[in-house]
Structure formats: C-alpha cells, structure tokens
C-alpha cells in the first residue's frame, strides 16, 4: 500500500507534456470528450434552469426549456426551508473533518514507523472498518450512543463520523508518512532523545499539511453528504441538510423548482471545496483506493 497519495501536481503532468496533433483520430477524440462533457453536465442544466422557475412554468414537458420568467422565488423558499439544517451541517462537518484528521495523523504515524508484532493484522482489521455496511452496526449503535449519554442530533453524528472515519484517515496518513517522511528524520529526533509524542508533535505534524488537506476535504465531504447515519440517528429538527432536503423534495407533491434550488444549495459547499481544492480532492480519491 505504497504511493497511494499522488503529489498534488502529478495528475497535471500526466498528459500535459504530450503534444496533441490534429488528425481524424483527434477529431473523434475531441468529439467524444465534448459529448461526454454535455452528458455529464445535463443534470446540472436541469437543476439550474428549473430552480429559477415558478408556478405554471414548472412542468415535466417543459423541463428542458429556459424559464419563461426568471425568478428567485424558489431559491427563497428553499433557503427558508433549509437554512437551519444548512448551518447545523457546518457544525457537523467542520469538527468531524478536524478531529478525524488529528486522530488519523497520530495513528498513521505510529503504523508507518513502529512495526510492532502483528502490525499488519491490526492495520487490516482497522481498514476493514471502512468497508462495512453500516447497517450491520446501526441497530445497537442507536442504543449505545443514548446509553453513553451523547446528546442526540449533531453531537451524536459528529461522534459516529469521527469513529467510522478512523480507518480512512489512518490509511491516508499511514501512506503519506510511509512515502514522504524520510526515516532519517525520525531517527535523528530519536538520537536527540525526543520521545514518540515529542517527535510527532514537533517534527511530524508541521510537515503533515498535505495529508491534512486530503483528510479534511474527504471527511468534510462525507459528513456533509451523509444520509445513512443521518436518517438513523437524527430527524428534520436536529439533523443535517440531507435530511432537510429529502423532506423538502420527497413530499407527496413536491415543489420541483424549490427542490432543485434546494439540491443546489445543499451541494454548494462541497462543490466549492471541490472547485477550490480540486487537486487535493483527487488526491483524496486516490487515497480511498487502498492501493494504487
């Protein structure tokens, strides 16, 4: 499980260096690339166009038409419905991102340097935790979080996302440290008499920023987008945005324009993170692959 995390710039250089020449082959190439571009963006077009419609303008047969009258009324309605949950979801996703990253860094450091007996088995057992269907823990989980007295809603969700985020964050940091931190650095600190904790805090943490960027983006996105834990452990009054959106869009006769505006509002933070930090986002995706 080496070299899982791509250095941020590496994907840029995959193909950029090669010259593209124009021939029949390259016309097909560009035609296909554009065709897929349009297909991928199609749902986005419908979302955006519909979100600016209102009243009789909204309809199945006129789905592809531009709005007859552009209006933000549906955005207004969706924002009013989603605002409390939208803000709550930041209270969920930010702590999850930070806490899981710190835990992951500590674990990753230990597992990348201390080859204690049975380390491989322990690591495999940790990793398995990220593949399990969470239904297999959900029934007792609901009882146990109540029993140990974690307040319902966001605090409970923060806790479970941190716990079940341990495997992926540990994996990302373990691979990051295994490939980027030279053995000599740790050795030098040891010779200077620094213990494990001191080495970690003063030598390793300062050079861990790229790893942190990856896990923070990864955990922020998965906590923000999560629906499974949310539906089991919270409700529309204390839950995150996915629950609120589903309530808005899943009603018996949903307001399609407001639903679409709501879907866009819901996706805005993760899309923003993705556009601004896309290169590291891809790094995080690579890291999810266990091995590359």
């Amino acid at each position, binding site marked *: 499980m080496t070299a899982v995390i791509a250095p941020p710039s590496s994907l840029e250089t995959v193909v950029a260096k090669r010259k593209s020449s124009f021939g029949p082959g390259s016309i097909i190439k560009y035609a296909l690339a554009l065709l897929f571009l349009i297909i991928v963006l199609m749902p986005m077009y419908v979302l955006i166009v519909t979100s600016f419609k209102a009243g009789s303008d909204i309809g199945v047969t006129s*789905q592809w038409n531009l709005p007859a009258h552009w209006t933000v009324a549906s955005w207004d309605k969706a924002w009013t419905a989603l605002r409390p949950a939208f803000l709550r979801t930041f209270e969920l996703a930010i702590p999850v991102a930070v806490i899981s990253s710190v835990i992951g860094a500590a674990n990753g450091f230990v597992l990348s340097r201390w080859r*204690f007996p049975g380390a491989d088995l322990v690591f495999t057992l940790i990793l398995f935790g990220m593949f399990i269907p969470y239904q297999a823990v959900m029934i007792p989980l609901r009882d146990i979080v109540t029993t140990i007295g974690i307040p319902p809603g966001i605090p409970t969700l923060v806790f479970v996302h941190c716990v079940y985020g341990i495997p992926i964050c540990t994996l990302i940091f373990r691979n990051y440290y295994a490939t980027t931190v030279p053995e000599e650095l740790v050795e030098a600190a040891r010779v200077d008499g620094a213990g*494990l904790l001191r080495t970690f805090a003063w030598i390793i943490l300062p050079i861990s920023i790229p790893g942190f960027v990856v896990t923070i983006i990864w955990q922020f996105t998965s906590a923000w987008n999560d629906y499974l834990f949310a539906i089991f452990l919270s409700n529309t009054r204390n839950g995150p945005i996915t629950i609120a959106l589903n309530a808005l869009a899943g009603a018996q006769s949903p307001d399609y324009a407001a639903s679409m505006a709501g879907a866009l509002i819901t996706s805005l933070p993760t899309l923003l993170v993705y556009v601004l930090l896309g290169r590291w986002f891809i790094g995080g995706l690579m890291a999810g692959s266990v091995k590359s």
Partner: protein
Amino acid sequence: MRRLRHWGPGLLLLSPSLILLAVFVYGLIAWTTKVSVSDEHTALGSKGFVGLDNYTNLFTNDIQDRFVHSLKNLAVFTVVFLVGAMFFGLLWAFILERGVRAEGFFRTVYLFPMAVSFVASGVVWRWLMNPNMDDNAGGLNAVFVAMHLDFLQSAWWTNPTWGMASMAIPAVWQLSGYVMALFLAGFRGIPHELREAAAMDGASTYRLYRNVIFPQLTPVALSALIIIGHMSMKMFDLIMSVSGPQWLTEVPAIYVWQSLLTSDYAKAAAISIVLLLLVAIVIVPYLIYTNRVEKNS
C-alpha cells in the same frame, strides 16, 4: 521491558482508536449478530434464541420472496453500475491520456458529480427519469423524442423487470469520474522508459496499449472494481432519494430500514449480517492480497 519501552508509546497513541474500533465495529457487529439469532420481532423485545431461523426465513419463508427479490434487484443494479462506471471511467481516462487541450477542465467536469451527494442528485434524476412518453415526455424521454429516437424511451426505474438497471444510471453518472481518476493515476504510474522501449521496438499504438499499457493497469482496475462493487452493495441514499422505499426498487440496505420501521429488529439484523457477509467475501481477500503485494515490494 525493553520491548515495552520500544513499542509502548506507539501502542499508547494508537490504543484509543483501537478500542473505539473494537467496540464500534467488531463489538457492534457481534451485537447485531446476536439480535439476528433472537426472536426480537417487536419493540417489546423478547430475547429468545432461535438459531438461524431468521436467516432461513429470509431465503425460504419471506412474503412474496421479498428478500430474494431485493437480492435480485441488487444484482442487476451492481452489474450495470460496475460495467457502466468501469467503461466510462476507462474511456474518459483513455481520451484524456491521449492528450486533449484544456485537459484539466475536462477532468474537473467529469469528476464533479462525485462531490454531490446522492440525495441532492437524486432530486434531479427523479425528474430526468420521468416515465411519461411521447407527447407527455419529460426528462431523458423528451430528449429521445426530440432526437427522433422514440424507441429509446423507457419507463426507467418503474419498469418491473429492468427498473434496477435504470436506477444504476445516476450511480454511473456519479462515480465514472472517480474511476477515471483512478485510471489516470494508473496511466501516470507507468514508467516512461516502458513506452519508449516499446516505441523503439516499433510497436504500433494499438500494440503499445494492448501489450504494454493495459496490462499495467490491472491493479488499478481491481481497486476500482472493489470500491465500486462494495459501494454498490451498500447502496441506500440514491434509491431512497430517486424512488423512495418501495417494492420495485428495494435492495437489502433499504429492506433493513423498512424492517426497523416496523420494529422487526431480528429481521433487520439478519439482513444486515447477510449484507456484511456479501461485502466481506469481496473485501477480505482483497485486503489480504494488497497486504501480500505490499510485503513483496
């Protein structure tokens, strides 16, 4: 004593996580297993031991073979999802790897659906896969009508036989970019010398890909298959968002939820454990395999 001083601090730092995972992963799985062999079918919760009855009932004694039906749905969904995501992922990676201008732009667009939640994308896919046809057509059907490809119109997920294949379309849309990113990283990992050597030997482009490059991508393809496959088996959000819980599109993950709504804990637990075993059959050999590969390298 020396060994303790050597391993001690590391284990200390690791131990909170190990304890949490021991309790919340393995402990709770054990607990769920225990519920699955009990007769806790109501909120009242009597805890009698019934052996594997709940499991055998799922396969042989479920009303309208509901569980088997959900497994069939899952199988159809998984096949389409896997084939679709692998096909488009590899194709897109291949196109970009051949070199296109503004490659970063294409890559960003292909990958962006990954950042959107299934709940949010389900809102629009529910509309795109509207089953109305011809004059009333909307969504994708309207596109087909406009292109005079009327025969491509579909009832989408409302089709009782192949509905689950349609349900996989949004999943393919969402995850193909991810598979593409994995393959792009795979292409990147191929040493330049290898390409150059093949070019020196006068290999045609076709032979270069067929004999040199694609074989090098096998480990990446395996990773992608595993990741998409296990996501597929756990699929819940997307189906809840597009169709909501209903017979036509029910998969085991949703059946668990439905059973819990009626407080049938034992049944929900049994389904969860079957689901876990399905995932484990794929994941455990994979983890062992990656472990071994790493040790050899």
